[in-house]
């Protein structure tokens, strides 16, 4: 691929704290390499802002290799930007061309209050995970793996669901700011494995109760979440979540 450099016009959301109303500010960034990642491009801008004595743009990041789920931001209306199945940190500047205008916003949802600029508080997801409780496992010697047969399809589906990194792009993309894709991935991950079986019913009921408490919207099956998910979690997991919830309530105490 041809290397090139570009000049860009950025329109970035600036917000001092969760009480501030927030506004957009425009920045010109020049000589950006097509080999840079999107976050490195913001690093370059931040270096400049700091040297000018102004406040740098706050954004979340950690591993920068697409597995931790920390990076967020909505780039030109798309959570994690234009590339499919990619987190913001893995998005590279070759996705853009010279002269492009890029609008950068935080994930917007009542359940994800802005901490500062592009950083949002996604603790709601942590509380949902916590509400799921524990998974019973045998202690002592490790059991022989072959003594726990798991149907291939279930193993594959559980693994695909477990790929969810909890970044919140599904909430950011959803017109209702619904967390159903996230919760469905977490429920599907354990519902298909013998390891999660003992707490299966309680888990789904508690997680949905917590999800509702956090103020997310409900799912109207328009599937924007699946398209924007960097781990391409399938909406069929949402059908499974609905099934699990119904089963748990119909057969529970």
């Amino acid at each position: 691929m041809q290397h090139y450099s570009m000049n860009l016009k950025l329109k970035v959301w600036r917000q001092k704290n969760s009480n501030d109303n927030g506004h957009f500010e425009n920045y010109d960034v020049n000589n950006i390499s097509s080999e840079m990642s999107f976050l490195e491009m913001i690093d370059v801008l931040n270096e400049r802002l700091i040297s000018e004595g102004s406040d740098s743009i706050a954004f979340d990041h950690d591993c920068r290799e697409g597995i931790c789920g920390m990076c967020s931001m909505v780039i030109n209306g798309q959570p994690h930007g234009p590339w499919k199945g990619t987190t913001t940190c893995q998005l590279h500047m070759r996705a853009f061309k010279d002269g492009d205008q890029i609008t950068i916003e935080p994930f917007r949802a009542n359940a994800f209050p802005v901490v500062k600029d592009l950083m949002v508080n996604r603790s709601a997801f942590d509380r949902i995970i916590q509400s799921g409780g524990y998974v019973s496992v045998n202690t002592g010697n490790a059991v022989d793996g072959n003594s726990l047969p798991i149907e291939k399809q279930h193993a594959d589906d559980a693994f695909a669901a477990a790929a969810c990194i909890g970044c919140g792009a599904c909430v950011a993309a959803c017109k209702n700011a619904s967390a159903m894709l996230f919760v469905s991935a977490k429920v599907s991950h354990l519902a298909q494995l013998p390891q999660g079986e003992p707490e299966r019913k309680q888990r789904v009921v508690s997680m949905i109760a917590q999800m509702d408490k956090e103020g997310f919207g409900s799912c109207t099956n328009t599937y924007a979440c699946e398209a924007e998910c960097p781990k391409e979690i399938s909406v069929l997991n949402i059908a499974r979540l609905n099934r699990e919830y119904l089963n748990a309530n119909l057969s529970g105490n």
Partner: protein
Amino acid sequence: MNWSLLFSSSIGKKIVMALTGIFLVVFLVVHCYVNANIFFANAEENFNRAAHFMGSNLLVRITEIGLFAGFILHIVQGYKLELQNRGSRKSRYAVTAGNKTSKWYSRSMAILGTLILLFLIIHLAHFWVPSRFGGLEEVYYGDKKFHNLYLEMKNIFAEPWVVIVYILGCFSLSWHLLHGVQSAAQTLGWTNKNFFPMIKTIGIVFSILVPLIFALMPLAMYFGLQLDLENITLLF
């Protein structure tokens, strides 16, 4: 199941939407079948007899109460969900690009539902109110007396604007169903990799076919069209 979850939890509310939606779909099939009498030979008598059966049979009348309850639940719960969903993102995006996965009608269920509700009010005022509370002419078949609902239909659909309103109502219904049928299946958890494409196809065929037959009714009345098929009778 703690039944109150059906009205308090997010999935519970959606299950109510899906179940009442399916119930209303079943109603559409019955309504469509009964009315289709007007397309065939001996339309007036067959249709009036069918309407008489629907208005006098005890089981149908009991189901009618359920139908009203189903409509009210579907409407009230639908508006509640819509308000809640709209309120879940107070600060709006400056740029939105996330509409590629869904059609406009999938994102406009509340607006389409409202249009259907307005249509329903007009429709009930046209036909249901006079057949329940009087105001229809009477006709004898043999020595038995029937309401002439067929004549009422002819009179009402003589107005071009009424025909247009009814056709627009059918369009709203079609778009509402195009999203609603497959969405109900997903909400009830009936979808999986092998099954989903089939459900979607059935949903699309149903959503076009049934409103189309309904739309043909005012048109057939207005233009006085009838199929000349002696052997077909939809009377039960």
